[in-house]
């Protein structure tokens, strides 16, 4: 059973190494995701994104599978946040980037998020 989430995908005309850099390197992220990026890319690593318009989002990394997939949780202020997964897959013409964002909140532990919720508990316990 999967909770609903927003899923978007795009094809990049580059190989998977370049695509991975585009979705994980702070200077590359500043070209499309946020105006300012500070990022410690690892499980339990923290990040700050200043979005266009000035909104500041904090984030914490849940998991990093080098070259393939990166999952983090982000939120603004005290608001309940979202879990975001960025995944790469080889495709004809380049590499596809699929982003999945799902809202979370007090229901996360009751809802059948399964691995993600337990992953966050593990990360928070280690932080």
């Amino acid at each position, binding site marked *: 059973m999967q*909770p609903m989430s927003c899923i978007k995908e795009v094809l990049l005309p580059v190989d998977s190494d370049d695509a991975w850099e585009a979705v994980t390197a702070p200077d590359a992220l500043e*070209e499309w995701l946020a105006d300012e990026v500070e990022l410690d890319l690892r499980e339990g690593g923290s990040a700050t994104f200043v979005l266009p318009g000035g909104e500041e989002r904090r984030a914490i990394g849940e998991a990093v599978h080098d070259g393939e997939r990166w999952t983090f949780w982000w939120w603004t202020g005290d608001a309940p946040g*979202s879990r975001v997964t960025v995944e790469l897959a080889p495709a004809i013409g380049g590499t596809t980037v699929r982003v999945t964002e799902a809202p979370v909140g007090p229901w996360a532990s009751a809802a059948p998020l399964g691995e993600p919720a337990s992953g966050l508990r593990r990360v928070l316990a280690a932080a």
Partner: protein
Amino acid sequence: MSEPVDAVFSALGDPTRRQVLDEIGRRGGATATELAADLPITRQAVAKHLAILSGAGLVGSTRHGRETRYRVTPAPFGEAIDWMTRVGAEWDERLARLQRAAARRASS
């Protein structure tokens, strides 16, 4: 984003629960007994699903004597749809910028 949005998504993530909600909507209101009669699930399972749907604000209930009738309350759908629309638009913009940035790097 308000707290109930993720509850709505969680509630609607179960296909049987969606069936229960559809049936209430189709009937214009229903009791747990009526739902269990129409759907291939036990009354106990119906009650569990109704509790989750109610908790997410997707159904409201009124007591008539010993019966409780459930009806669909659409407001949380709006919040969930608003969230999906807003977040979807944000990612559309971001991924378009990502694609342009990658194309620039590919051609340089």
